Structures are given as structure tokens and as C-alpha cells.
């Protein structure tokens, strides 16, 4: 290694540190800002530590922002929506990957279309449909809509995962006389476990982060991001409190991200993260 290439290496690392710093600065700054004394007069500049750590902001934000309620909504939605969406995707993905039937191609392309149909194109009639079946302003509306929005991606993902299974796996099952149902749960699902885990994690992220649907369909019991948006609208000048609320809403997705980093990366590196 010559000296020039060594300076080059150093420069590259500095560059990488710089861009990573830019990526996290607003987030770290928000955490710092959340610990400043709350009130309109206190303005965190982002370059100094607060005089004392005012953890009480978190308690106040949690109570005043009604996050007990909005977290409950978000958690219920995710708890029902994620397993439902993943199971439906496994079933349909398995059907498309291992069976041939009339119209399977057309059906598959119909699902593909779902990947690029924007919610804006369906939101208007959806509102009146959901109202007509009496689900307006319920968690059920959000669950149903999120699942139906997510299966397009899930089916692709699972179909691809099942297609990558060696044909010998299926053949062995067939020779044993196993039913298609048994083959799915006893052989294909264990084989595709990493893909299923990735799908689960990405689906959770989509559910937790969903805002547009929540804004339209859960008026009186908002989700966590919706709750944060209204809270920040009402307390614009109280940066410490709003920041604390933002950190509160970020914590669940942050934990999932840190624990399942590998799965997130796999999702992204295959270019499949939606939105």
C-alpha cells in the first residue's frame, strides 16, 4: 500500500462517518431536545446538552398526547394485521409457486399491479365502502385495509422464496404421498423460514409506520403516528415535549430494527422495500 492510497482510505472513512453523521444528527438531536426543560421559551439549539435531563417530558408527553390509547390501537392493528397478512401471503405464494391452474398468470399479474396502485387512487371509494359496512372509525377498517394493501408484496416475496426451493423437496413429499397442505407446513414453510421472518419484520414496519390510512379511517382512536402528528400540530412551540413524543413513537420500530437488522437489510438489498 502506498501513502496516497492510505490517505485515500482515511478520506473515505471520514466521508462515510460524515454522511452517517448527517443521517443520524436530526434523530440524535431530537433525543437531546426531548430532555430540555419543556415550555415555549426553551429552545434546544442541538449543539449543547441540556442543563439537566428532564425525563419528566416523557411522562407528560405520554399523558397529554394520549399515547396510551394510540399505542394500544397501533399494537392491536399490528398484532392482528401482521400474522394475517403473512399467512395469506404464504398460502397464495405457495399456490402460485407450486401449482398450475387456469388463470393463474392473470391473477398473479393482478396482484403485481397492487405494488404500484397508490392508495390515493382507491381512498375515496374506500371511505364510502367502509362506512357502508359500518366499519368507519374502527380498528377493523385499518386492519383489513392494511392487510389487503400488503398481500401484493407478500405474495411476491413468498412465491419467490418457494420457487427457490429445490424441486427434490417437493418430489420427496409427493412420493411420500403428502397432501399439498401438509407439504406446505411441514416442508416448504420450514425451508422458507428466513424469507418469512424478513416478510414479517417488513410488514410490521409498514404497519407501525402507516399514516395516510390511519388519518382517514381511525378518527377517534388514532394510531401512534397519527397521535404524534396531531400532538405536534397542537404543541408546535413546545419542542421538548413534541420531541419526547416523537422518540416515544420511534422506540418500537427502533427496537425491531435493531433486533432484526439482518432481515431489514435483506429486504432492502433485494430492492423490495415499498414506499
Amino acid at each position, binding site marked *: 500500500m502506498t501513502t496516497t492510497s492510505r490517505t485515500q482510505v482515511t478520506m*473515505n472513512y471520514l*466521508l462515510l462517518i460524515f*454522511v*452517517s453523521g448527517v443521517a*443520524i*444528527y436530526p434523530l440524535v438531536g*431530537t433525543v437531546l*431536545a426531548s430532555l430540555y426543560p419543556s415550555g415555549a421559551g426553551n*429552545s*434546544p*439549539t*442541538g449543539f449543547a446538552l441540556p442543563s439537566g435531563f428532564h425525563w419528566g417530558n416523557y411522562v407528560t408527553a405520554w399523558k397529554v398526547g394520549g399515547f396510551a390509547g394510540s399505542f394500544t390501537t397501533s399494537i392491536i392493528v399490528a398484532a392482528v394485521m401482521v400474522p394475517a397478512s403473512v399467512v395469506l*401471503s404464504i398460502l397464495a405464494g405457495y*399456490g402460485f409457486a*407450486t*401449482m*398450475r391452474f387456469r388463470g393463474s398468470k392473470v*391473477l398473479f399479474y393482478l*396482484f403485481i399491479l*397492487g*405494488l404500484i396502485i*397508490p392508495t*390515493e*387512487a*382507491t381512498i*375515496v*371509494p*374506500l371511505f*364510502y*365502502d367502509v362506512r357502508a359496512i359500518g366499519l368507519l372509525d374502527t380498528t377493523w377498517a385499518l386492519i383489513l385495509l392494511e392487510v*389487503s394493501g400488503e*398481500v401484493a408484496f*407478500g405474495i*411476491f416475496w413468498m412465491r*419467490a*422464496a418457494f420457487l*427457490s426451493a429445490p424441486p427434490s423437496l417437493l418430489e420427496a413429499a409427493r412420493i411420500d404421498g403428502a397432501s399439498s397442505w401438509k407439504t406446505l407446513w411441514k416442508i416448504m414453510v420450514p425451508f*422458507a*423460514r*428466513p*424469507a418469512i421472518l424478513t416478510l414479517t419484520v417488513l410488514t410490521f414496519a409498514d404497519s407501525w*409506520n402507516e*399514516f395516510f390510512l390511519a*388519518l382517514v379511517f381511525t378518527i377517534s382512536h388514532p394510531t401512534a*403516528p397519527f397521535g*404524534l*402528528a396531531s400532538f405536534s400540530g397542537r404543541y*408546535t412551540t413546545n419542542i421538548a415535549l413534541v*420531541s419526547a413524543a*416523537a422518540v416515544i*413513537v*420511534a422506540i418500537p*420500530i427502533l427496537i425491531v430494527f435493531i433486533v432484526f437488522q439482518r432481515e*431489514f*437489510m435483506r429486504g*432492502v*438489498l*433485494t*430492492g*423490495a422495500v415499498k414506499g
Partner: protein
Amino acid sequence: MDAEPSVASRAVAVGSRRRPERLPGEARRIGYLYIAPAFILYAAFNLLPLGQGVNTSFYDWDGITPGTWVGLHNYTGFFTDPAIRSGYVHVLILMVFYAFLPIVLGLFLAALLSRIRIRGLTFFRMLLFLPLVITDVVTAVAWTWVYDTHGPLNTVMNAVGLGHFIPSQGWLGDFNTALPAVGVFGLWGSFGFCLILFLAGVMKIPASLYEAARVDGANAVREFFAVTLPGLRYELQVVLVLSVIGTLDTFDEIYVLTYGGPGTATTVPAYLVWRRAFQSGEVGSAAALGITLMLIIFAVTYAINRLMERGAEP
């Protein structure tokens, strides 16, 4: 071993990529049963409303009283309604920040960084990935603070003597700076994703190609255009499609950062759909806007894919 969904799901992300379709499996009608649950839900809450949306878009309707048939009138708004026109202009400007700049910067950095082995890449990747993972509403709230009167941006500007450039209404409240301010937020949000994807792509380019280029006496710039850029074609296609679609249906950050304001300085089509459908009772127009947006997304996706694939042929 990991299941390897990468190739197919990449094909998915870019939409219409044709791969030799090996029609899998045996003919089995039980297939319908496996598809049915997902399809019923998908049809009821996506396909059906899509049809209804097209229908609604032909009416002048306030959402309460019976509507009147107006034919394509709601669609002509795309050309005649200044609010809609400026919405699309705004989204085009945002595209510079959400798609063009992150891609250019990402390519540039990926090319620089490709020349060394990076230790701790996983860690850097995690940091760069955070803006994408964390809820839009949260990151937008973080940026309202960045742009705050006494926030970090103004603190820095004052410290380096550029204080007189700070708009008196604040960055997000000034007619000239609000849209670029939203844009910078978008640049921040999508840059890491581009870089991560390009870095991963660069690592898959065989080292022999670089060696060959160097033997031919290529300098860094030539090397970039001869080896790195062609090698990243796939990634570029994915990023282009995702970021352009992502820009076209931008909503969350507009709602949090500016509510489309000041005035209409930051309204975008998705925001207009929401406001007209649920705030101002112009339901027919909102439906037409949504359908138009979808058609544009289809067209753009198709165009990008065709363009990139044609560019790939020697």
C-alpha cells in the same frame, strides 16, 4: 441456508421485468383455494374501489347530495385547475431532491468507497438506514425542529454570519423556501437507501473488470463510466422506480411539515386528493386526481423500465 428471494423480488420491484417463466408445479385446481383468501380481500379493498373510483371521477359530487354526471370534466382540471397544475410542478421539483440528488450523490460516494474494503460496514449501513426505517411522521417532526427559529440550522447560519439569509417566516413558512426545505428532508430520507443499495451492487461487480480497466490505463472517471455505472444498472433501475413513485405519492411529510402551505406553496397531488375528498367536499375531483396519479405512476414505471432495459442491450 437462506431462501434466495433476491432475484425474483428485484424483478418485482421493477415491475414488468420479464424472466423466462418456468411454469411451476402440476395442474391442480386446489390452487384456487390457496389464492382465494388473499384474493378476496385484495379484490374487495383494492380492485373494487379502483373501479368505483373511476366511476366517481365522472361525477361532480360533494359526498352527501346525489352527484351530477360531468364526464371527463374532473380530468380536464389536470390542465386547467391551477391548484392541480402547481401540485404537479411541486412534485417535479421534489423529484430533484427525492430521486435525482440522492442517486447522483449515492453513485458518487459508492464509486469512491468501492475502491477500499470498508471495515464496520454493517454499522455504517445501520446508521444510514435509520432515516428510512423510522416512521415518516417521526422524522418529519424531527425536521420541524431542525428548521425551528432557534433550531440547529439557524444556529449554524447565525454562527457563520449568514443570519440575514434566514427567512423571517421560518424555512417552512416562507413561500420561496418551504418547498426546497421539504425537498432537503426528502434528500436526507432517501440518500442512505441509495448509497446502501449502490454499495451492495458495487461489491457484486467482479474485481477482474476493475483490473482490466486499470490495465487499459483508465482513470477513476473512466473506470466509473466503463465499469461501475454499467454494473449498477439493476440497482439504478430499482432506485429510480421506487424513488419516483415514492415522490409522486408524497403525503406524510407534507401533512406534518407544512399542511401544503404556506398558501399552496407545498401542495402535492396526494395532499390535494386528501383535502378535496375529506376537507372540502370535492369528492369527484379527488377521485379523478387519484386515478390520474395512478395512471401517471403506471406510465412512469413502464417508461423507466423500458428505458433501462433498452439501455442494457449492447
